């Protein structure tokens, strides 16, 4: 009995220690280091080529594409825009660009389109496969003219979760990646609200929370410091998820 008490106490002390360590700054720095090692190895394994997320065939498409996070935006502005078929929806392209843009859905549809059947992996562990269509972000950035000091792209969204507005960001490597598209079709149909109508980013080499929905703005910046709480995204700021979500 004593031994069992000792084991229980040792176990509890171990867990308490883990909690302490997990919340410390040194641990945070170590994790950030591990995260960038993972990112480094994912890039290095490409050996100079651009690594592409696996693409599937239409036979692999999931019968239903699950929505997560925000599934209903719920604001009067959004509901009115949805009722109007998103005819007045605009995406502002700004920040460190030569020519700020305000793009309608028609503007985006008139650009060269890319269709890709990819797997969407939620940080929670589930996956769904869907066919996404839209212009490459690189084409939109080329239209706006990215200034050389830009290092990150910030995506603004129409939805808010409990702690504030949703936003996300990626580096220029992902921004200019051929599979990074501004999707307006899922499986050949306009996006359902749960999947981000009318526009959602696809950043295919990372987990689902890096694919912001209800896109309203694209902003080029040198640093993520002044944006939100500075960690580069809603979940990064408020829940501690890693900015690099390639794992």
């Amino acid at each position: 009995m004593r031994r069992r008490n000792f084991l229980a106490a040792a176990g509890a002390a171990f867990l308490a220690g883990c909690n302490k360590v997990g919340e410390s700054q040194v641990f945070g720095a170590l994790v950030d280091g591990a995260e960038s090692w993972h990112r480094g190895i994912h890039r290095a394994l490409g050996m100079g080529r651009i690594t592409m997320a696996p693409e599937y065939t239409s036979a692999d498409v999931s019968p239903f594409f699950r929505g997560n996070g925000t599934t209903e935006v719920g604001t009067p502005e959004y509901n009115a825009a949805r009722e109007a078929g998103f005819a007045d929806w605009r995406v502002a392209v700004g920040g460190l660009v030569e020519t700020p843009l305000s793009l309608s859905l028609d503007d985006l549809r008139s650009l060269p389109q890319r269709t890709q059947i990819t797997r969407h992996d939620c940080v929670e562990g589930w996956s769904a496969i869907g066919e996404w269509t839209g212009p490459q972000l690189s084409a939109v950035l080329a239209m706006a003219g990215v200034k050389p000091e830009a290092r990150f792209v910030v995506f603004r969204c129409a939805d808010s979760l409990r702690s504030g507005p949703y936003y996300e960001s990626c580096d220029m490597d992902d921004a200019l990646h051929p599979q990074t598209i501004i999707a307006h079709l899922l499986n050949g149909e306009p996006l359902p609200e749960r999947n981000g109508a009318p526009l959602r980013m696809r950043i295919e080499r990372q987990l689902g929370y890096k694919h912001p929905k209800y896109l309203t703005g694209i902003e080029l910046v040198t640093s993520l410091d002044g944006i939100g709480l500075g960690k580069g995204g809603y979940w990064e700021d408020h829940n501690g998820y890693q900015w690099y979500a390639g794992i």
Partner: protein
Amino acid sequence: MATDASAIRDQAAVSEEEFSSTVRKTRKRHALATRIWHWVNLASVVILFMSGLNISNAHRYLYWGDWGFSPDQAWLAVPRFPGWMTIPDYYSLAIARDWHVLFAWVFALNITLFMIVSLANGHFVRDLFTRAAEWRPAHIWADIRAHLRLQFDHAGSKFNFLQKVAYSKVIFLLLPLMIFTGMAISPGMNAAAPWLLDIFGGRQSARSIHFLCAWALMAFLLLHLALVLLSGPAKQLRDMITGGREDAAA
């Protein structure tokens, strides 16, 4: 003078023999590399397992194939693991993932170094690889009966047959599978090395195998612990820390 010189030579020869026999006697039962690997591996496997159970709580369904997102597609509904089994001891997918991706490095680099050193120093070939004769049914049966009588004699070699089989399955199959299935779950790694997905039959299959291998490892750990407790735990523990003496192993 001549006799003196030969006496000295004889003396020298004797002490050389004594010296080499001392070396043989004090040869470590467990090499330093093995001991470092063993304890770092234990710590990282425990941390990865417990943080992994916290991650499992985020979505408690397992699937086969490329995709799966709801209970009706699942082959297994996993129970929710209680706080005392998880790191941290409350539900936090973010912090559990931090522990998991950090210790994945410790775990993978540790076993990689151990494998290189153990190939170089002959540990794998000498102690872990079975010999053809050991696969004779009579020999296997004798080893099983010895285990059932709780006799753990090794008949000259460091490990007995069942031990060699168990340790090599863990070192060459389960632990590498944990690493490769873990890599196959990562979308960044999928882009870099898509062939990993083909090997395991899709991301959700890799996730299921990752989960099954984690529990197989836990089963091994418990069996290993039980057998250490049955075979002189104080000495076993001491030898895995200090290295022990090779002669004392037989």
